[in-house]
Each structure stands twice: as structure tokens, then as C-alpha cells.
């Protein structure tokens, strides 16, 4: 007969299983394993805040210590999601404040977080340690003051790229003198000046501080004060990297950097004056990550830096690096894994710097470990893409943005189907792909056929018709997130692949050819999805059913339709009506 492990033993074994996927698998074995697992799960990741309600999460996992939740769709980063869409953290914090008094960590992305939420966090969780707000909005520095003042064991406060209502820098002074636990502080997105002496004292009394990302208002000549008090720093984001430094200030800066023997990552560099860059040379050989993507420096200065960073694994940089700089990168940084090249002047049609596809080809040739690419450029060719695919078969993420929409192969004037086809065919591990340039349904045929590990696909201004979408939905076995804009995909592909949508996290389509009628049909067919029609022209009921809707967001959910939709969103319901929107 079956003997089962004593519960305690199983629990002990499970405590070594951290990954969500594995834990989910464990919970499916049998009822008793499900029970044991759910009682000892400590971390939960919710990729779509509307996929599950707080109550469902709390009911299943009563002992959570750490939550990570994502809100708005990715295209919200590019202003495609209207204001007021949703993604409110408030219902979560209310529910968790009662259910999880021992909560330690909250990590949010693209959510709306109010000052009340922050005050609730500060009040409700006695052992609160980690707050990461990535691309969030809705709160002010007053909320931060609550966190600083009340979270006695705070280890991480990371506001990466959030939109904060910056009332003053005074909030930082709310950290009590007894706070010595900080490990990571990222205030780079804040505009107003924090009291420097408060910051200095805070840094001094936190011996475990490893990551410090300052905002622009921290002046360069004060940086040594901080570095000297935190020589154990592993990651540093400078403030403004410009000043009129007196000679002794400059040597202070050099000495301060020299003293940071553990520094592995550098970022910041706003308003950078190249004259002072040599101050960081002492740490270059140890750097694994360098973010110069806000640094207005030209290729020669970038080259001088990069050529000293032989251990670099990640480089984020502006296109000022030019092809020549990428050549140097390719020859010096053999450990490079991730490259992001951002446009210095995205709206200018004419090339403002000599950065072309050749630069990316060089890097793919010279850097065998390259696995993640985000590259903005003004021209591309199939030949280059084929070469890149051949050089870098281990690519996991490949995001290419040719600035001009629908730009063809600049050499042959053909679509870039063959080039991207080569990417998906050769790069078998590819998990994320963003397309651009002139593309026909052909490229989607290749993607459907080869991109079996692809989890996230971003499409813009591409394809000929429904077949393109059909190839993707029917072929990409691992697809979780699909986002499409301005492409002629319509009803047929969606309806034919409706079941696929329940296996994905979400689908976003805007400025495509999806009709209201099809949306209603989908709502009828698919009970476990929310079909949300976003249309700022007023209720789709006032237009013919064949009329295309502006935007649609489809996601699977256990919670049914949400009740916080604004008046420009209509959720399709099971009866084929949409009574859940405000007409």
C-alpha cells in the first residue's frame, strides 16, 4: 500500500523548492501535497493583477511573506493604455494588511499605488523589509516619508522609474537614527533634492548597504562623501556627473572610487562631463554592468571607458557609441551577455550618428555569450539579421526597433521576413522577440513554425492579414504574452484560435481590424477570459458590430470581470452583451 511521507518531512523538502513552476507542479501531484504546499508557500508571483483576486490568493496561500504583482499591459510604457485603465494596488494592500501581518516584501510593476497604500504598508506589516516599485505611479514623497519613518527593518526601497509626485526631498530625513538595515536604496527617479546630510548619515549607519542609486540633484563633488562611507557598495547610480570641480575635489573623487573595491555596477551619469569620467577608471575592470543610457557622451569617451571594462556582462548605452564603439566592445568585452542601444534622437528621420546594423553584427561576432539584445537603429538588412542569427544561436531576447515604421531591407528593398525568419530558426532558445520594419505574413509563418520556446512577442505595423496572426497563435506553443499594434489582423484568426487565448496570460491588440461583433462572440465562447474592449469614442453599441474597435485586451482570469473599469472599457460577458461597461 502507499506509504506517504510524514507531513513534516514533505514540508522540509518543499522548503528547498523555490521556483513557482516547481511549486505549482508539486501542488498538482495529489490533494495532500496540494494542501501541504499551499501552507508553506512563502512567495507568490501574480503576472496580471486581474487574473486572480486578493481573496483567492489569501484563501489558497495563508502564509505568504512576499508578493510580486504586475498591473498594466506592457504597451502602457508607450502611452497606448489610456489614463485610468486600472491596476490599483489598494484592494491588495487592504486585504493583505489583515491576512498577512508578517508580510515582508512587495514588488510591483506598472501599478497605481497611492499614498494611502504606502501608509497602510507602513502601519500594517511589522516586519516589512522590501519595497520595489517599478514603473508605478500615484504616490508622492509623503507616502515615502511614511515608509521611511515606520518600517524599522527596511532593507530595500527601490523606486525604479516610477512617476512620483515630488513634493520635497524632506522625506528622506524621516528615516530614524535607529534605521541601520538598508541594503538597497534607489531614488534615481526623484527630482527634488534630498537633504544631503541626512543621506550621508543614513549611508554611514547602514553597513550592509550594497546598492545605492542617487538622483540627479546629488552633486558630483559630494559623491566622495558617500562613497567613503560606503566602500562596500556593489552597485552605484551617480547623481549628476557634472560640476566645476576644484582639483582637490577631483582627486577626492578618484580616491573615493578607488576605495570601492566591490563595485560591480554603475549607472546614472546625467549631464555627464567627460572630463571627470577617468575618475571611474579604477573600478572599470571589476564592472559587470554599466548603464550609460542617459549619458550624453560621444563615441571616443565611451570607447575609452568600455575598453577598460573587460568583464562587462551588461551594457546599456545610447547610439552615440556608434559602430566604431560597438566594434571596440566586440573586441574587448568577451563576456558580454546583454546589450541595449537606445536612440539619442528617436524622432529625427535622418541618421544623427553613424550607428547602423553593422555595429550589432560586430557584437554578435565578437561576443559569444550574447543572449539579450535591445537595439534601436535606422536601417537593417536581411543579410545582417541572417549573420546575427548565425553568430548568436543562444539568443534568448531579441528586440529590434527600426525607427521608421515599415522600413524595408535598405539594401534590397524587400521585407525583412527572411532576416527575422533566420533569427527564429537559428535561435532555438528565443523567449522574447520584438519585430519592426517592413514585414509580411511570411515572417509569422516562420515564427509559428520555429519559435517554439517563444513566450512574448511584440508586433507593430506588420503583416498582411489574418493569416499572420493565425500562424502565431496556432504555432507558438509557449506563447504567453502577445501584443500587437497597427497591424491588419482581424476576427477570423482570433475566433479560430480562441482556445489558445486561455493558455496565454494576455493578448493586446490596438489599431487592428478586430470588430465589435467578434469581441462579443469571444466573450460568449470563453468563460475564463476577460475580453475588454477599450474605446474612447464612446460605447461600441452605438456603432455597427462590424466596426473595428480601437483596442482590445484579453486575459485569462479566475475572478471574472473586474469592477474598477473606467467608462471607456467594456467587458464582454457570457450572454454576448456588454452590460458591464458604462454606456
Amino acid at each position, binding site marked *: 500500500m502507499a506509504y506517504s511521507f510524514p507531513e513534516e518531512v514533505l514540508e522540509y523538502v518543499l522548503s528547498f523548492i523555490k521556483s513557482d513552476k516547481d511549486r505549482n507542479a508539486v501542488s498538482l501531484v495529489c490533494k495532500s501535497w496540494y494542501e501541504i504546499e499551499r501552507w508553506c508557500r512563502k512567495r507568490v508571483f501574480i503576472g496580471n493583477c486581474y487574473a486572480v483576486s486578493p481573496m483567492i490568493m489569501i484563501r489558497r496561500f495563508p502564509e505568504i511573506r512576499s508578493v510580486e504583482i504586475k498591473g498594466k499591459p506592457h504597451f502602457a*510604457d508607450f502611452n497606448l493604455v489610456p489614463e485610468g485603465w486600472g491596476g490599483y494596488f489598494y484592494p491588495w494592500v487592504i486585504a493583505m494588511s489583515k491576512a498577512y501581518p508578517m508580510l515582508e516584501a512587495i514588488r510591483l510593476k506598472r501599478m497605481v499605488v497611492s499614498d494611502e497604500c504606502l501608509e497602510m504598508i507602513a502601519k500594517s506589516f511589522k516586519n516589512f523589509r522590501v519595497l520595489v516599485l517599478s514603473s508605478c505611479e500615484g504616490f508622492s514623497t509623503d507616502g515615502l516619508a511614511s515608509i521611511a519613518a515606520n518600517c524599522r527593518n527596511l532593507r530595500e526601497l527601490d523606486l525604479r522609474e516610477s512617476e512620483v509626485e515630488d513634493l520635497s526631498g524632506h522625506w528622506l530625513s524621516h528615516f530614524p537614527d535607529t534605521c541601520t538595515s538598508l541594503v538597497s536604496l534607489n531614488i534615481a*527617479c526623484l527630482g527634488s533634492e534630498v537633504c544631503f546630510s541626512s543621506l550621508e548619515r543614513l549611508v554611514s549607519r547602514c553597513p550592509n548597504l550594497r546598492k545605492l542609486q542617487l538622483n540627479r540633484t546629488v552633486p558630483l563633488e559630494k559623491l566622495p562623501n558617500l562613497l567613503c562611507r560606503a566602500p562596500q557598495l556593489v552597485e552605484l547610480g551617480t547623481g549628476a556627473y557634472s560640476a*566645476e570641480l576644484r582639483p582637490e575635489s577631483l582627486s577626492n573623487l578618484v580616491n573615493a572610487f578607488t576605495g570601492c573595491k566591490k563595485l560591480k555596477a554603475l549607472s546614472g551619469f546625467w549631464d555627464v562631463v567627460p572630463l571627470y569620467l577617468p575618475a571611474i577608471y579604477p573600478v572599470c575592470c571589476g564592472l559587470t554592468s554599466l548603464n550609460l543610457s542617459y549619458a550624453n557622451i560621444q563615441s571616443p569617451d565611451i570607447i575609452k571607458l568600455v575598453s577598460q571594462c573587460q568583464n562587462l556582462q551588461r551594457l546599456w548605452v545610447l547610439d552615440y557609441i556608434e559602430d566604431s564603439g560597438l566594434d571596440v566592445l566586440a573586441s574587448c568585452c568577451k563576456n558580454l551577455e546583454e546589450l541595449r542601444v537606445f536612440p539619442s534622437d528617436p524622432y529625427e528621420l535622418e541618421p544623427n550618428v553613424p550607428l547602423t546594423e553593422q555595429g550589432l553584427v560586430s557584437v554578435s561576432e565578437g561576443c559569444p555569450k550574447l543572449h539579450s539584445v535591445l537595439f534601436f537603429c535606422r536601417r537593417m538588412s536581411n543579410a545582417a539579421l541572417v549573420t546575427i542569427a548565425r553568430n548568436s544561436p543562444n539568443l534568448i531576447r531579441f528586440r529590434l*526597433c527600426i525607427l521608421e515604421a515599415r522600413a524595408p531591407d535598405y539594401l534590397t528593398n524587400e521585407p525583412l521576413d527572411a532576416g527575422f525568419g533566420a533569427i527564429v530558426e537559428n535561435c532555438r532558445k528565443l523567449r522574447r522577440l520584438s519585430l519592426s520594419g517592413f514585414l509580411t505574413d511570411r515572417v509569422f509563418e516562420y515564427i509559428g513554425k520555429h519559435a517554439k520556446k517563444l513566450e512574448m512577442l511584440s508586433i507593430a*505595423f506588420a503583416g498582411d492579414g489574418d493569416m499572420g496572426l493565425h500562424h502565431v497563435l496556432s504555432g507558438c506553443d509557449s506563447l504567453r504574452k502577445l501584443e500587437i499594434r497597427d497591424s491588419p489582423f482581424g476576427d477570423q484568426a482570433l475566433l479560430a484560435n480562441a482556445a489558445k487565448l486561455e493558455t496565454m496570460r494576455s493578448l493586446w491588440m490596438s489599431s487592428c481590424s478586430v470588430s465589435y461583433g467578434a469581441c462579443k462572440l469571444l466573450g460568449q465562447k470563453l468563460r475564463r477570459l476577460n475580453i475588454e474592449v477599450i474605446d474612447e469614442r464612446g460605447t461600441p453599441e452605438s456603432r455597427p458590430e462590424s466596426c473595428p474597435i480601437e483596442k482590445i485586451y484579453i486575459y485569462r482570469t479566475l475572478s471574472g470581470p473586474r469592477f474598477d473599469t473606467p467608462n471607456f472599457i467594456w467587458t464582454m460577458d457570457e450572454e454576448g452583451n456588454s452590460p458591464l461597461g458604462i454606456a
Partner: protein
Amino acid sequence: MNLKTELCLGLPGAAGGDVEVDQSVKMKGKRGFSETVDLKLNLHHNDHPALDLSQNVKSLSNNSVIKPPAKTQVVGWPPVRSYRKNVMAVQKSNAEESTTAAKTLPGGGAAFVKVSMDGVPYLRKVDLKMYTSYQQLSDALAEMFSSFTLGISLMAQTKVLCMICHKFNQFRNYGSQGLTDFVNESKLMDLLNSSEYVPSYEDKDGDWMLVGDVPWE
């Protein structure tokens, strides 16, 4: 013609001992983003020869052409995040790419100005759009530089600082009448008469101009 102006804030007799180096202002009629004008605040002692106002009243003509955007911009394309766009916009202004698309500016963007003071080893940045008068601005600057003590409290002595932002091309609308009105403003006159220091500034051509020459706008 683009008027490039600088104000140097320094000790009396420190004329010419400027800390900040001019950067040339490029004229590009691009979309109206923020721009920066380098300002060095300089306070000359009253002993200096009287400045000839008439010479320094330049009729500013805006002969810039606003280049229309080559293509209508599509929402969210290219896919650059707003956070990055905002940061880069401010950086561009700091790099002194100016736009003379004055007509599109009001209300839009910021008007960052770098202010340096002689002997002070760092620059401060001020958004001119936050102030509606010289008084407000001078108060703000006084606060900013108040922690810096030279033994002489320059700010305490004089409260009026004059800035010119050449992108506001409404100067010509004021003409000489506007100038007279402003110069006659009693408060300004009192200060000029009573203060030990006379605020002045150096424009692009190296001429010293008296504060209050040009109206705030």
C-alpha cells in the same frame, strides 16, 4: 539673430573672471523641447562706469524658421518609454540645443537655466518657467546660494537679478515703450540706487548690460 546672454555672479571687480564657459547655441527649429541658457550671475560694484543702456537695447528679431516635423508622430512610436523621453529632453536642454520655436513653447516644456556663481564650485539649475517675475527668481536664487558664504552676502545686498531667455521672442513686442516702463518700475530703481552692487550681465557679444534692460517675459 539669437541673443545669447550670460549673467555672471561674482565679487566686485571680478568682471571677466568667469567660471562658466560659453557654449554656442545652435539654432534648430525642431520640436519645442526645453533648452538651457547658461547664466553667470555677476554683480558689479557701482563704481564701474555707467552702462549705456541705449547701446545695449538690441532689437531682437527672431529670424528663425520653425521647421515642421518631417512626419507626423505616431503615438508610442518609436517605443521609447516616457521616463526616458523626459530624462533625455532635460539633457538636451542642458546640452544647449535651443529651439526658437517660441510660439509653441509657452506652457510646454521647461526652461532650464544653469546658474553659476563665481567661486562656487557647482552649478545650480533653475526652471525659469516656475517664476513669473525677477523678484521670485531672485528669491529662489538667494535661497539656493545662501549656504555659500563668501564673507559677503551678495544676495542679501541685492535682491534683483536679471535673466534673459532668448527663446522668448516677445521682446520685440515690447519695444522701447516696454523698456521704459520697466526701467521706471520703482522697486527696481530703488534697488539700483540703494544697493552697493548693481546687478549686471554679460551678453553673447561680451557687452555688459544692466539688469532690467529687458522685461521679464
